[in-house]
């Protein structure tokens, strides 16, 4: 039997990713806007978008090990979409922070990025995700040639920075960030040879 996914399967898988990612965000912003997202909707939105972005990025990193195990190479076709949505959530996260937390005090944004290590780290990860997003299409891939892969290996650094940003942002209960770090380390361990090579 030839294992694999038809075009149709891929179409529906992508449709599902669009539906969940967009639908969940719309629903959550609607609830925040109508004061149904807990006592402090601003905090609620920051948590939702931050965790959402991290979840999507981890899903993105699951794809290549998944392809290896399942030998279904077509899964590769949804990886870019997951990556783009990870950045989309990170964009919402930063935009919500600027609009609702800082209420457009740009001066404060700059000083927080410089002064607060966990914001510095989050911002660095955000810049990496931005660069990966801007170079995620076929044209950029062709233009960058071998450098494209080099650039996109930065995703591992971004994931590590986000884990650090997360654990640094919580007050004392680090259980959940530790679980996330565990998952990330597991995903990275599948690529340990590649990562060791990058290190050297």
């Amino acid at each position, binding site marked *: 039997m030839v294992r694999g996914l038809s075009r149709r399967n891929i179409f529906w898988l992508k449709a599902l990713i669009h539906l969940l990612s967009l639908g969940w965000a719309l629903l959550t*912003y609607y609830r*925040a*806007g*109508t*004061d*149904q*997202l*807990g*006592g*402090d*909707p*601003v*905090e609620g*939105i920051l948590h939702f978008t931050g965790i959402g972005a991290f979840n999507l990025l981890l899903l993105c990193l699951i794809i290549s090990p998944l392809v290896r195990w399942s030998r279904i190479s077509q899964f590769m076709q949804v990886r870019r979409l997951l990556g783009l949505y990870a950045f989309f959530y990170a964009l919402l996260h930063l935009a919500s922070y600027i*609009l*609702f*937390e*800082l*209420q*457009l005090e740009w001066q*404060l944004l700059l000083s*927080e990025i410089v*002064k*607060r*290590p*966990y914001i510095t780290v989050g911002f660095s990860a955000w810049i990496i995700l931005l660069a990966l997003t801007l170079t995620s299409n076929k044209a950029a891939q062709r233009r960058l040639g071998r450098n494209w892969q080099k650039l996109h290996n930065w995703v591992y650094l971004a994931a590590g920075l986000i884990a650090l940003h997360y654990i*640094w*942002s919580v*007050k*004392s*209960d*680090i*259980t959940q960030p530790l679980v996330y770090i565990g998952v990330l380390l597991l995903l990275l361990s599948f690529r340990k040879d590649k990562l060791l090579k990058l290190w050297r």
Partner: protein
Amino acid sequence: MLIKRPTSWTLKDNQVTDEKIYQQRRHLLKQMGFIGAGALLASHQASGISLFGDDEPRFKTHVLDYAEAQQQSQILTPETKVTSHNNFYEFGTDKSDPKANAQAFQVDPWQLRVDGLVETPFTLSFDELFKLAPLQERIYRLRCVEAWSMVIPWIGFSLNALLNKARPLSSGKYVAFETLYDPKQMPGQNNPFRGGGIDYPYVEGLRIDEAAHPLSFLAVGLYGKSLPAQNGAPIRLVVPWKYGFKSIKSIVRISVVDKQPPTTWNLLAAQEYGFYANVNPKVDHPRWSQARERRITTGGLFSSNRIDTQLFNGYDEVASLYSGMDLRQHY
């Protein structure tokens, strides 16, 4: 997208309505008397958004008799937010956990022991908590160390009234407080993963002159009724010029002592949380700014209020307690 950015205390319709409903309800309660009022409240609660089905236990509060606070211009934080957005790690570390997990909390019988370096130690039962002194309403700002704040109508009495009854000895320099330790009732205490890594019981402390300051308050109620479990029933401290974590909940012991007592958050991270923990916009938390705060009132994402934080949370009358002290060093 239209972002509202209120720069001052512009009254918004929904917020005024909130206040109005509260006042009307109070008026009605007074007219109907105790029993009728209880029924009214029960039906009011049942009609609100509730996570609990009818068969789930629900923590019981009762209507209190007290001297009302004077009219004031600050917009109150709605009762639903005061009672659903809580830091009470004994019941879980998410803001919504205490409300979800504290409904079966037993507060009657209760024992509050007042002892240590005092002439007349004593113990208060649940009923006695409400009778130690005439109850009064105080509308205080509460500033959390996480940079959000509320305005809450508390009901209770001065901490000083309780201390006067115990009569501290001159050797008493500090007052130490302790929360109930009961892992069977408090899931955060029996599971290190749910309690935020805190070494329970939660303990707090004040210098004795801070404790004796007329603003220091023991609350037994809010919004006209006895305290909900998630807000620290049956009795909690409210020190409005200090960060919220100083205002210890569900107190079982108040001791006058001669040395600065250990305090929970200071034990957990001394470089982030000091003994004094006075609200101070100039002294940042190492990980975030304390210069401003988000005032939690009515309204969703688009009506969020960011305001300047005031030294001592705006309660300037306490400044003399700290004259000559370096507030940066004694954060």
